[in-house]
């Protein structure tokens, strides 16, 4: 994805530089011609009138560069919390990679992590019971071995 955007942008920049150089050459030629051939009845054409091909090349190169920049922007993120969290749950890090294919720095990971590990859901009585049984059975097994 990123090399497409870079190629398109580069092509547009080359075209724009060419159009700019052509425009400079054209105006230079116009002014030299108008100073060497003095004709008061036929006033020199104003330098504002560019040839059609240079104008078209400029417009085309601007559109190309804009398209390349738009291709190169990093993907947007949903602003609604439920859409955003659902995207992370479904796609994980892939939804938060930037144009260069790296995971962006402010990617926070699973938004439900705090809920899944909150201590209010730890059943301490059950854990105590299991530990007591383990101690008892472990002792029985040790006695059997002896």
């Amino acid at each position, binding site marked *: 994805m990123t090399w497409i955007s870079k190629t398109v942008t580069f092509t547009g920049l080359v075209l*724009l530089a060419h*159009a*700019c150089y052509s*425009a*400079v050459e054209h*105006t230079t030629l116009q002014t030299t011609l108008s100073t060497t051939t003095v004709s008061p009845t036929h006033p020199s054409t104003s*330098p*504002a009138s*560019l040839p059609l091909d*240079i*104008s078209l090349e*400029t*417009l085309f*190169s*601007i*559109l190309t*560069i*804009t*398209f390349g*920049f*738009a*291709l190169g*922007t*990093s*993907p*947007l*993120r*949903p*602003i*609604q*919390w*439920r*859409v*955003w969290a659902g995207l992370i749950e479904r796609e994980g890090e892939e939804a938060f990679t930037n144009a260069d294919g790296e995971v*962006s720095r*402010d990617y*926070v990971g699973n938004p439900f992590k705090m809920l899944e590990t909150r201590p209010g859901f730890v059943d301490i009585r059950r854990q105590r019971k299991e530990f007591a049984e383990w101690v008892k059975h472990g002792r029985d097994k040790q006695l059997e071995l002896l």
Partner: protein
Amino acid sequence: MTTEKDFQISPIVPEAIAHNSKTLFNYQSLTASIFGVGAGILGLESYIGFLFYLICSIVAALFFYTLRVAPSSIASGKAPFDTSRYFRGALEFWTGGLTGGLAGFILTWTLFYGLVRA
């Protein structure tokens, strides 16, 4: 009109808003400078130059919409030209570049006008 109750029911992510706005602002600043180069080469003057900037900004916003917003926005059931999946205000999306990129536009416009016509 969104009230505080609406935000309680469907909360929004500030980081996502900041990320989207930053992406859009960078894009608009870059393209505005390029439009200025174009306007300078074409030798536009006064109102025509600003009209050129207005049209180009709208075209740039359309590009951004079709490439970045539209594919997932329409797939999630939003109407065309509805940017509410990624941006809070539609006006901010379509015309935010006009004010943000104006300084860069005028800078490169005058520079390239001077370079080409000098």
